[in-house]
């Protein structure tokens, strides 16, 4: 949640892009981890992640996970055709 809460009438959010401030990573129970050696860069995980938490490095083309927003749904793990994504229990 944003540090200082403002209660605009009708809950209108007047500042665009503010959902970035909401770190959904705190919800995670399982943490996905990409094994770069197995990854074939098919980008299915990038396409399927409901939180756009999978990022692609512009230079290397490698995928990485933004753990600030990854909420651990493991859709990426299910989608990966070469099982390059593993899960571990999140340690808080």
């Amino acid at each position, binding site marked *: *949640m944003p540090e200082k*809460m403002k*209660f*605009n009438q*009708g*809950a*209108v*959010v007047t500042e*665009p892009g503010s*959902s970035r401030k909401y770190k959904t990573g705190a919800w995670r129970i399982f943490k996905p981890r990409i094994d770069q050696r197995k990854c074939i860069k098919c980008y299915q995980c990038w396409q399927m992640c409901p939180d756009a938490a999978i990022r692609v490095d512009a230079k290397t083309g490698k995928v990485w996970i933004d753990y600030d927003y990854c909420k651990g749904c493991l859709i990426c793990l299910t989608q990966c055709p070469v099982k390059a994504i593993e899960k571990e229990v999140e340690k808080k």
Partner: protein
Amino acid sequence: MTKKVIEASHAIAIGARLCRPAVIPMYPITPQTHVVEQLAEFINNGEMDCAMLDVESEHSAASAVIGIVAAGSRAFTATSSQGLALMYEVLPIISGMRLPAVMAVANRALSAPISIWNDHSDAVSARDQGWIQLWVESSQEALDAVIQGYRISEDKDVFMPLMVCFDGFTLSHLFEPVDVPLQPAVDKFLPKFKPLYKLDVRKPMTFGPIGFPNSFMHFKKQQQEAMLNSISVIKKVNREFKKAFGRAYGDGLLDLYKMQGADYAVIGMGTLCGTARVAIDRLRKKGKRVGLIRVRSLRPFPEKELQSAVKNLKAAAVIDRHISLGQEGPLFTDVRNAIYCNDISINSYIAGLGGRDITVNHFEKVFNDLEKGKQRGEWLF
């Protein structure tokens, strides 16, 4: 002003036309249909600069209201009974997003058994969804309430949607002489809609976001404050309406009839009050001290006003055109709650469900009950 003999549905349509909505999302349902037809005629004839959205359901009509008002335009719609029930999901969204709008509800029973006729079950059941509800008694008031409605709903201290509730058939299809206000007078009375926020691609905003447990209650409290603010706004708009058009409806919240020196009163909403007036006139001629309290605003509920209206009564009877199954008449619940500290006896009567006639005889019986000190109401068949 020009006087015309028209039905209330037509009066509602004229009221809407005079308020210049930009878009009207519509889905027809008996007995609201004449409102839609009339508005379609106005648009077709070029008498109204407005777009009609022919939507696929009442749920869509209510959803379209969100988009129209969020984009900064004035919206009008109308429905009835099952149609209002289908809108139910969207009603608290419109009010929660603080989008002012006016919707006319031609009150009709909810099925089953299927009934196309009048009672108050549709809108009364929706009373907790953050819509101001004005219940009208005549075609004239139906027209006027639409104009008042936009002023109230769009008031900066309110910003809550408003329903104009008018009895299906009993009023919607009733022809009466109606004073039609002139457009310049309405334009003067009702300024252009000024939204607090609006959808604009050049200045993006988020409408309708999630409210987490740490914020949700704050927004509900704001809505409750807005509803309570609307009490004085309804009164103010009613007074200003009188100045502009020469008509007012009680104090805007309650409409009292022959309450001066009354010992006994009936309390009700809508057209049944017209019948009550006839009964009261007859009984007054016989020297009975009887009167009427017509609840015009069900939400917000005028508690203080009601307390002072019943102050000198010995007993009162609430006539509900709806039954909260397993409890009692909901208007009775509200009235008893409001006048809890007034030491008067109060009876509950259920009447007129599914279009059942409410007659002068019924009211004479009710007043007779009160006079005799009968402590219980009943169902009036």
